[in-house]
């Protein structure tokens, strides 16, 4: 998988891509790093997020978005890495690294990529709480859970 990975995305990776961009003579590097928040929800706290994806489609879609960004702006580098599987609070869930000659293009392309990834790419997150419960995001599943007293929706912790 090119844009999706089940392995941890390390801060070293961000630094490596930055050095690479600099060595190619880029004048502007914009790095977006998505980090898992340990939010509180009532009495329980998010300890991790679990990411699921329709991997084949997600890869194709990210590839297309990168191509769209490259067609729209003059970019020296455009790299996306999105985690799948379990990411602990404080861990990196996604990086979008864009390098260009000038900052306007780099900012615009970075915003475009992360916005479209969040809107379109078939990836889903499940919140894993410190009390052992888990819940898919969005709220639809909350209704589903209520409708099914067995709690099967929460079964996969």
């Amino acid at each position, binding site marked *: 998988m090119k844009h999706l990975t089940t392995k941890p995305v390390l801060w070293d990776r961000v630094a490596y891509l930055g050095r690479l961009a600099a060595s190619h003579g880029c004048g502007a590097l914009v790095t977006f790093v998505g980090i898992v928040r340990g939010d509180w929800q009532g009495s329980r706290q998010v300890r991790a997020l679990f990411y699921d994806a329709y991997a084949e489609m997600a890869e194709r879609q990210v590839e297309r978005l990168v191509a769209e960004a490259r067609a729209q702006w003059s970019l020296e580098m455009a790299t996306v890495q999105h985690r799948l599987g379990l990411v602990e609070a404080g861990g990196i869930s996604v990086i979008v690294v864009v390098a260009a000659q000038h900052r306007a293009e780099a900012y615009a392309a970075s915003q475009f990529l992360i916005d479209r990834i969040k809107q379109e790419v078939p990836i889903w997150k499940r919140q894993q709480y410190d009390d052992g419960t888990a819940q898919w*995001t969005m709220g639809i599943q909350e209704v589903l859970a209520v409708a099914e007293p067995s709690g099967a929706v929460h079964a996969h912790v």
Partner: protein
Amino acid sequence: MNVRVRFFAWLRDATGTEECWISLAPGATGRDAKALLVSRYQRLSGFLDRVRLALNQEYQTWEVPLHDGDELALIPPVSGG
């Protein structure tokens, strides 16, 4: 004709499976597949309003015609990032 259907995220929990095959009459559309799936997995009833259809890994409308061997996926609202 037979089409493969894949489920993700909470739809996988709701159906209890990652995928299934369904048989449809020639000329069937995504909407026909959706109706058949709701009858097979009754827990889906009422929860597919915001779910999108992907056909062979591309978003499509529910009116898209299906063909033998197609891969369908029900795509709940995404939440990557």
